């Protein structure tokens, strides 16, 4: 790149750093604030006196959280869901994307299948028929309902298809000359080259399964089976006091606890915060090659 050392350019550099660092701070500020609230005392938090630094620093909310069996139960369900969901997605996405990356001559009806995929991405019969289907498969209250519920991650399949299509043809042709069959071709030639895109879609799967709350709400028949995000949603969501009885309202009011909520939110963020920076190098390549055709 061109070096440019005029005074104006220096000034520009400094302004640039200030702006970019400012924006970056803006991105972590809310998370920092949540951490500060979780470490403050409850009175300060509920009267809104906590800013960027904890007021009345204490670890009480985290101690309380450690004893919350339901929270960790939900945490564990989410972990299971992520492992099963990301694993299954990994296999199915590869198995679908590889043949669909071929053209219509190699795979008859390829375009029809492709449109079916896109069609299912956009059309759905609504919540109730979907619920009835999951129910008739006997999956209500089953972790597999969460794993399978939203069907094939079509977007990820498309990403991998495009990645495969951007790989040099020569490799495949050389392997064909050697008499390599379709399965070995996929596993030994294509998959090793697809590292970045596989890491990307796996990250998407992990994040999706970790963050999704609605299916948990609808498909699980007891709070004991809620994944973590559903648990959190129940906590932060507005309580409808009209349908409650006196005793319920009273107990509910004892529950309102800002610092504990902040601690739960913070703990729920941690897995994702830990994972994505490690996969960053891969997903940048994966997304780029999966979507932009050079």
């Amino acid at each position, binding site marked *: 790149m061109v070096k440019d050392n005029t005074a104006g350019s220096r000034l*520009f*550099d400094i302004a640039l750093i200030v702006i970019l660092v400012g924006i970056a701070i803006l991105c972590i500020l809310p998370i920092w604030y949540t951490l500060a609230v979780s470490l403050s005392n409850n009175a300060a938090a509920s009267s809104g006196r906590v800013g960027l630094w904890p007021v009345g620093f204490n670890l009480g909310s985290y101690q309380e959280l450690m004893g919350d069996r339901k929270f960790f139960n939900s945490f564990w369900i989410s972990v299971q869901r992520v492992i099963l969901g990301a694993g299954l997605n990994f296999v199915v996405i590869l198995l679908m994307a590889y043949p669909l990356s071929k053209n219509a001559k190699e795979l008859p009806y390829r375009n029809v299948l492709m449109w079916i995929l896109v069609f299912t991405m956009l059309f759905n019969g609504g919540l109730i028929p979907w619920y009835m289907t999951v129910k008739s498969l006997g999956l209500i209250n089953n972790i597999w309902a969460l794993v399978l519920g939203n069907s*094939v991650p079509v977007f990820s399949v498309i990403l991998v298809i495009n990645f495969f299509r951007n790989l040099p043809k020569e490799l495949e042709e050389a392997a064909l000359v050697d008499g390599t069959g379709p399965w070995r071709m996929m596993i030994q030639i294509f998959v090793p080259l697809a590292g970045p895109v596989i890491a990307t879609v796996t990250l998407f799967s992990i994040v999706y399964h970790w*963050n999704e709350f609605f299916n948990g709400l609808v498909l699980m028949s007891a709070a004991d089976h809620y994944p973590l*995000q559903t648990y959190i949603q129940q906590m932060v969501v507005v309580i409808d006091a009209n349908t409650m009885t006196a005793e319920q309202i009273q107990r509910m009011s004892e529950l309102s606890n800002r610092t504990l909520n902040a601690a739960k939110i913070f703990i729920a963020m941690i897995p994702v915060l830990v994972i994505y920076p490690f996969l960053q190098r891969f997903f940048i390549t994966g997304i*780029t090659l999966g979507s932009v055709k050079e």
Partner: protein
Amino acid sequence: MINKGFAKHYYLMLLPGMIWLTLFSIVPMFGIVMAFQDYNPGLGILHSEWVGLENFKYMFSLNDSVTILVNTLVIAVLKIVGNLVFPLVFALLLNELRLRYLKRWIQTIVYLPHFLSWVILSGILLDIFGYTGPVNQILSVFHIKPVLFFGRADLFPALIVGSDVWKEFGFNTIIYLAALTGINPALYEAAAIDGATRFRRMLHVTLPGIVSAIVLLSVLSLGNVLNAGFEQIFNLYNPLVYSSGDIIDTWVYRTGLVNLQFSLATAMGLLKSVVSFLMITISYYLAYRFANYRIF
């Protein structure tokens, strides 16, 4: 070089995914017929009374329908524009940054919000924009009366769009940054020799270099014109902001699952699907024709 014998293996590979797709996407799709029935749960889909386009007629007679269509379009289109422009500007600025390690750090940090769920972010946002939250405390320093942010219908779309752009802009820079690396450095050198300032170089070298990526992304986002973001709005809205914040998806949810008007909800959902499908088809052909790019 095509081996005809491979096709059956390809189908075998597709089989597990297709079964999954059939069970969880295609089978439930038959529920679409509810849009043309007066669905009665006791009778089921097979025996409910057919009413033709009655549900659609009723739907269009509601004042609500216009409101939610407008809300959906406004929010979705603003989100599309914001998510095209902000990442672009940010990518251009980041590209000018010469400190390598700082650049990496900033990149990592701005990707962060993308990975957090709306459940978590709504909890945080409601707190931060609360009446006694940090934002209002800052305003009070300037003697501005506290603002009830999530209770103001006039501010709600801006908050929704703003928080969405905040969440996604970092992640959306990825493609721009990738396109930027594809620009030939010789072009910059030539421009510098011609005496172009950094700003002019940005305008005349960088921008044209990624214009195709910009066009492509715009076309691809066509499919989202009716996606205003269910999870986000579901977790942030309240009756005070229905007039500007109620969108198709939240309306469908409430109509079907809270008010028990199943057929009406299905009809609205179907309308949304049809429009989205049309838009995707259009963008598929636009991208193919003008950018010679096949989306799938």
